[in-house]
C-alpha cells in the first residue's frame, strides 16, 4: 500500500515513476493480450487474461484512478476470470482444437482487419498526441480558439481529498439512477443465468409422484405432527426439539408432490388442530 500511495502521488505529479509504470504495465498488457489470443490452451489463455487485467489495473494507478484499479482487481481478475475458469473446468475443455483452422483466408483476413483498424485508430489519434506532455494541451481548444476549462483531475481530487471520494460522490449524486439501474441489471442477469443454466432434463412430474398410499401416510404423519406440536405448545418445549430428523424429508416430499389441496394448511401451520389431534393420539414423530 505504501508503494501504491507513492506511485499514485508520483503519477499525480507526472514524474518519472509514472513513465516507468506505464511502459512496464503497457508492454505486459499488450503481450499478454496477444498471448491470450494465440494460445491453444484455454486455461493458459484465461491466465493471460488475468495478467492483462492486472496490468490494466496498474495503468489505472498511473491515471490517478486508484478506485478503478482496485475494482478492476477484485471484480475482473477476481470474479469474472474465475467464472471463466469455472466454466472451462465444468465443461472439461482445456484444449482448444478449433484454433488450427484450415481456413487460412479467414485467419489472414482476421489479422488484416485487426491491423487495418489499429492503423486507422492510430491515424485518428495522430502523432501529436504522443508529444503533448500536458494533460491540458492543444486538444483542449474550441473551434473559436478559446481554451476549454481544463482543470485536470489533480485539482478535482484535491477538492475532494482523494479519488475514491470523488468517484463515490459522483456515483451517488449525479449518477444515482444509473447506479440503481445497474443494480437492477445485476439482478436480472442473475435470474437470467439461473434460467439459462438450469438443466433441461425431464423433471419428475407431480403425477408420477402421487400415489394414494403415500398420500395416506402423509396425512397420518401430518396429523401426528400436529398432535405433537399441540403437546409441545402445551408443555412449553421448544419446537425444534420436537421435530425429529425424519420429519424434514417428509415435509420436502410433501411440498414437492402434494403442495396442493387441504393438506397445505396443516403442513405449514404450527398451530395444532384439535380435531386431528383427538383422532390420532399416537405420536410417531417423537
Amino acid at each position, binding site marked *: 500500500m505504501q508503494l501504491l500511495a507513492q506511485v499514485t502521488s508520483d503519477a499525480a505529479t507526472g514524474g518519472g515513476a*509514472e513513465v516507468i509504470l506505464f511502459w512496464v504495465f503497457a508492454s505486459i498488457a499488450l503481450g499478454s493480450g496477444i498471448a491470450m489470443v494465440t494460445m491453444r490452451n*484455454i486455461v493458459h489463455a484465461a491466465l493471460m*487474461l488475468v495478467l492483462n487485467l492486472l496490468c*490494466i489495473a496498474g495503468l*489505472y494507478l498511473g491515471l490517478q484512478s486508484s478506485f478503478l484499479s482496485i475494482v478492476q482487481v477484485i471484480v475482473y481478475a477476481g470474479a469474472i476470470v474465475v467464472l471463466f475458469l469455472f466454466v472451462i473446468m465444468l465443461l472439461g475443455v482445456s484444449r482448444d482444437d478449433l484454433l488450427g483452422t484450415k481456413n487460412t483466408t479467414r485467419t489472414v483476413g482476421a489479422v488484416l482487419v485487426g491491423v487495418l483498424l489499429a492503423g486507422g485508430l*492510430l491515424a485518428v489519434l495522430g502523432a501529436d498526441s504522443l508529444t503533448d506532455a500536458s494533460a491540458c494541451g492543444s486538444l483542449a481548444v474550441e473551434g473559436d480558439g478559446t481554451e476549454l476549462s481544463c482543470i485536470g483531475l*489533480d485539482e*478535482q481530487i484535491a477538492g475532494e481529498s482523494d479519488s475514491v471520494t470523488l*468517484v463515490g460522490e459522483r456515483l451517488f449524486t449525479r449518477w444515482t439512477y444509473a447506479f440503481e439501474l445497474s443494480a437492477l*441489471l445485476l439482478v436480472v442477469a442473475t435470474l437470467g443465468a439461473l434460467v439459462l443454466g438450469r438443466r433441461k432434463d425431464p423433471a419428475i412430474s407431480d403425477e408420477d409422484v402421487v400415489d394414494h398410499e403415500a398420500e395416506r401416510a402423509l396425512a397420518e404423519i401430518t396429523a401426528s405432527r400436529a398432535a405433537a406440536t399441540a403437546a409441545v405448545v402445551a408443555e412449553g418445549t421448544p419446537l425444534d426439539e420436537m421435530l425429529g430428523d425424519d420429519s424434514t424429508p417428509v415435509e420436502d416430499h410433501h411440498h414437492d408432490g402434494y403442495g396442493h389441496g387441504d393438506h397445505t394448511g396443516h403442513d405449514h401451520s404450527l398451530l395444532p388442530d384439535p380435531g386431528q389431534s383427538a383422532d390420532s393420539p399416537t405420536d410417531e414423530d417423537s
Partner: protein
Amino acid sequence: MPIGYYFVIAALMFCTGLTGVLLRRNAIVLFMCVELMLNSVNLTFAAAARQWGGADGQVFVFFVIVVAAAEVVVGLALIVNMFFRRGTLDVDAPQLLRG
C-alpha cells in the same frame, strides 16, 4: 506522461481483442477476447477522464465493469447451455440464421 500513449495502448489492445474475436472459434476464448476489448475501452475512458479532469469518466468505467459482469454471467450460462445441447463450443457450428 502524455495521455496519447494510453490511447495508443488501448487502441492496440482493442485491435488485439478484435483479431481474437475474428480468429478464434472457441466460444469461451471468443468471450475472453470481448472482455479484452471492453477493458481497452475502459482504459480509454480512464485516460480521457484524466485528460479532461472529470471523475465522470471513472464512473463510466465503473458502470462498464458492472455491465460486463452481468454480461459474463449471462454469456457463460449461454455457452454452457450451448455446450450441453450441441456438444461443442464451436461458434460456427450453429447456423440456424443461415439465409
